[in-house]
C-alpha cells in the first residue's frame, strides 16, 4: 500500500510564464548585444550611421548563413568543422558554372546556385551519413571533410581564383533595400525558415529530441540516421547558399577562402545560447550571436584599437558575452 495523492488542478498561468522565460533566455544574450551597441554608439563616431549599420549587416551575412546550418547540426549534438572548406569548394564549383560562356545571366546564376548548393548538400550528406552509419563523432568526420573539401577545391582549380562573374550578379551582392543589404534579407529569411522548421515541424522537434536523448528517440521508433543525415545536409545546403552570397559580394571564387569560418559560425551558435551537447537552443539565438560577433568586429575597428588589441579584446568579449548570459540565467532562476 502506498500513499495516495490529492492533486491540485493544473495551473494555466504556467504557460505564459514559460514563454516569458524563453524570451528572457534569448534576451539574455540580447542584453550583451545591446550593451555592446550602446558602448560603441557612445565611444565612436560613425557607429550608428545608416551606412555603417548596413556595412555591419553585410558583414554579418555569410557568418549568419553558415551559423544557421550549424545550429541544426549542433542541436542534434553534432558539430561541423568543414563549413569553411566546403564554402571554398562550393564557391569554386559554383564559380566555374557561373563563368561558363554563352549562358544567359539567369541560366548561369540558376545553374551555379544549383551546383553550389548541390555540392554543399553532397558534402553535408557525406558528413551525416558517415557519422551516422559508422557511429563516429562528427567532430572527426567533419575534420576529415575539412581537408577533403579544401583539397578538392584546390585540386579542381589548381589553386587559381575564378572571377569575372556577370556584372548584374555582382551588383546584386551589394544591392540595398532602404539601406538594408539584400543579402542580409536573404539570411534573415533563412533564419525565419529555420526557426519555423525547428520549432513548428515534426522534423524540427525530432532534431531537438535527438539532441536531448538519442536513445529515447530511437526507442520511439524513429530512424536516427535519417534525421542526422538531414541535419548535416541542411548545413551543407546553407554553405552552398553562403558560397553564392560570397561570390556575389566579392566577385571571385577562390579555393582558399573560408579558412576558420567554422569557428566563427560555431561561436555565433554557442554565444546564441545553443547547447554544444545538443537539444537546447534556437536559431534566434544564433542570429543574436552572429550580430554580437559582427558588431564587435566592426565596432572595435571604429574604436581605433590596434589589430592585436582588437583580437585580444574580441576574445575577452566573447567570454564576457556568455558570462553575462549565464549571470542573467542565474538571476532569473533565483
Amino acid at each position, binding site marked *: 500500500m502506498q*500513499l495516495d495523492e490529492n492533486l491540485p488542478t493544473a495551473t494555466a498561468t504556467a504557460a505564459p510564464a514559460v514563454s516569458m522565460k524563453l524570451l528572457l533566455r534569448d534576451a539574455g544574450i540580447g542584453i550583451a548585444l545591446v550593451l555592446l551597441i550602446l558602448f560603441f554608439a557612445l565611444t565612436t563616431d560613425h557607429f550608428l550611421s545608416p551606412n555603417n549599420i548596413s556595412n555591419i549587416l553585410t558583414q554579418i551575412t555569410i557568418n549568419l548563413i553558415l551559423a544557421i546550418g550549424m545550429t541544426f547540426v549542433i542541436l542534434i549534438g553534432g558539430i561541423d568543422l568543414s563549413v569553411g572548406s566546403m564554402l571554398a569548394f562550393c564557391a569554386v564549383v559554383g564559380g566555374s558554372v557561373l563563368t561558363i560562356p554563352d549562358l544567359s545571366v539567369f541560366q548561369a546564376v540558376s545553374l551555379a546556385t544549383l551546383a553550389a548548393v548541390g555540392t554543399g548538400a553532397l558534402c553535408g550528406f557525406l558528413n551525416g551519413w558517415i557519422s551516422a552509419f559508422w557511429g563516429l563523432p562528427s567532430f572527426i568526420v567533419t575534420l576529415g571533410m575539412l581537408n577533403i573539401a579544401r583539397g578538392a577545391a584546390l585540386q579542381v582549380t589548381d589553386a587559381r581564383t575564378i572571377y569575372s562573374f556577370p556584372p548584374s550578379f555582382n551588383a546584386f551582392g551589394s544591392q540595398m533595400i532602404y539601406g538594408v543589404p539584400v543579402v542580409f534579407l536573404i539570411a534573415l529569411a533563412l533564419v525565419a525558415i529555420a526557426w519555423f522548421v525547428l520549432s513548428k515541424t515534426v522534423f524540427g522537434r525530432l532534431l531537438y529530441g535527438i539532441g536531448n536523448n538519442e536513445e529515447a528517440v530511437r526507442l520511439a521508433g524513429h530512424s536516427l540516421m535519417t534525421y542526422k543525415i538531414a541535419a548535416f545536409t541542411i548545413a551543407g545546403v546553407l554553405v552552398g547558399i553562403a558560397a553564392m552570397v560570397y561570390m556575389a559580394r566579392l566577385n571571385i571564387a577562390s579555393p582558399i577562402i573560408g579558412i576558420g569560418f567554422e569557428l566563427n559560425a560555431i561561436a555565433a551558435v554557442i554565444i546564441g545560447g545553443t547547447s554544444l551537447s545538443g537539444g537546447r537552443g534556437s536559431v534566434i539565438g544564433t542570429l543574436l550571436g552572429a550580430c554580437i560577433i559582427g558588431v564587435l568586429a566592426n565596432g572595435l575597428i571604429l574604436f581605433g584599437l590596434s589589430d592585436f588589441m582588437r583580437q585580444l579584446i574580441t576574445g575577452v568579449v566573447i567570454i564576457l558575452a556568455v558570462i553575462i548570459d549565464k549571470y542573467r540565467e542565474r538571476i532569473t532562476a533565483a
Partner: protein
Amino acid sequence: MNTNLAHVDSVAQPLLELHDIRKRFGGTVALAGVTLSVAPGEVHGLIGENGAGKSTLIKVLCGIVKPDSGAITLAGEAYAPHTPRDAKARGLQVVHQEFNLLPFLSVAENIFIEHLPRNALGVVKRRDMNTRARTALDAIGLKDIDVRWPVERLGIAHRQLVEVARALMTESRVLILDEPTATLTSRETERLFAIIDDLRRRGVSIIFVSHHLDEVFKLCDRVTVLRNGETVTSRRIGETTQDELVRAMVGQQLQKEMTHSIGSSARSETVLSLVNFRHAQSPHEDGISFDLHKGEILGIAGLVGSGRTELLRAIFAAEPPLSGTLMRDGKPAALRSPRDAIRAGIGFVTEDRKEEGLILSMPIAANVTMASLADVSRAGLLDQRAENALTEKLGADLKLKYGGPGKNAATLSGGNQQKVVLAKWLARKPEILLLDEPTRGVDVGAKAEIYALIRRLAERGLALLVVSSELPELMTLCDRIMVMSQHRIVGSLPRAEFSEEKILTYAYQGEKRQTGH
C-alpha cells in the same frame, strides 16, 4: 530441455509465444532458456529477483537485444524484431525500466514523440497535441503538471507517469510494462490498473513486471517466475500463492522476514538537528526543524512532490541551503557542498541512480570506492587490490550479483545497481545516512537484505533518515516517521502510533490546508 517447463501450462491460442530464449553478454548469462506464452487480453505478470533477466527479456521482445537462440511467434507468425521500430510496427509497446525521456522537450512532445500530430506540411499541431496530452495525463491522474513544461522540471514519479502515458498513446497488441509502479503511489497505481483492465477488455495482452507481489495478485491473470534467466514456473494466478512464488523466485523459503521485534536502537545523543532549515525551493520562511538521534531510523513519508527529495539534497548541501541552522552533534555546521557534508560524516543514497548515483560506464569497483578513495589509495596512488577487496567484501555483505569488480556498473540489473550505490556509502562508514527510496526496483529478497542491513547499521549507531513512498517499508523499518506535505513537516509519529490511516491523514491535511485558500 528444462525440467521446469513442466510447470508451464499451455494456453489455447497464445498471442505471443517465446520458446527457449537464450542470451549471454560475454561471460554473463542473462537468459538461459525462457519459455512463455501470453494469451490475448491477458495480463501476464513477470517476476523474479534482481538480475533474473526480466528487463533483458523485454529488450529481446522490443528489438533492442538480439537473442542468441530461441524462437518467438506473434499471433502465429514468426517474430524477430531488429529495431524498436520493427517491434512497434508489429504492435508491441514498451515502458522501459530506465527512463527514456527528452528533458528539454515539453511533456506533451514527450508523450507524442512516436507520432507527433502533424498537418500535411509536417507542422506540429501543437494545440491539438497539448489538448490530447492533457486528456492522456488526466486519464492516468496526473493533473498537477502543465503539458507545456519541459520534462526536466518533473520529479521522478511524474516522469514515470509521462512514460506510461506515452505508451498508452498508440494502439498496441502487446503492452509491456517494466516496473511501472516502482516510483508510483497507490493513487496512480490504481489508475494505471484501471487502464490496464480496460485494455485487457479490449483484447490487448499486457506483460507486467513488478517486485510487488500484491500488485501481481491484484492485477494479473497469470504469472511467470524467472530465476537466473530461466522460466521456473508459469501459473494461473488463482492456482498459486505469494509464498509459493517467493519460493520459486529465490529457490528456497524466504526467512519469515523482517518484523522489527527488537526495540529501537535509538540513543539519546542528537547527531543531526535542523532548526528552521530552509532550502531554495522551500516556500516557508520558517523552514523545517527536527532532530535525528544516534542509532535512529527516522522515516519521512509524504506524497509525491511533497519536497522530501529536496530536503535530503539540502541537508547534503547538494544545493546550498537558504537559511536556518544545521547542527551536527550539537554544533552548528555550515555545509556548503557535498564535500563538506561527507566530511561531516553524512552519506546520501539518491533516488535517481542513473543520473546521480552511478557512473555506469565505469567499473563496479570504481563506483563503490568513489566516495572513499582515500581508503584505497596511498599518496594519491590507487591500490587496486584494496579497491577490489573492498568491493568484494561489500558485494558479499549486500549479496550483490555481479560479474566481478572490474565489470562496468552498466552491466548490472537495476536492483543490483541500487546495491552498488549503497555500497558506495557504506564504504565511507558514515555516521548519518540519508536514503531516498532505497529499495526502488529492488526485489523481495534483496529488500529484506537491505532492511536487515539498515537495522544492523542502526544498531551500530548509524543514524538513518529514510525517504520512501512505500508505507509498509517505512513502518517495518523506522523508529519514528515524520510526514511531509507541501515542504513542511505536518506530523511525527513514534513507532507505537504507526498506522497507515494516521500517516495518510497527516499527508492530506497538509494538502488540504494548502489548496484550501
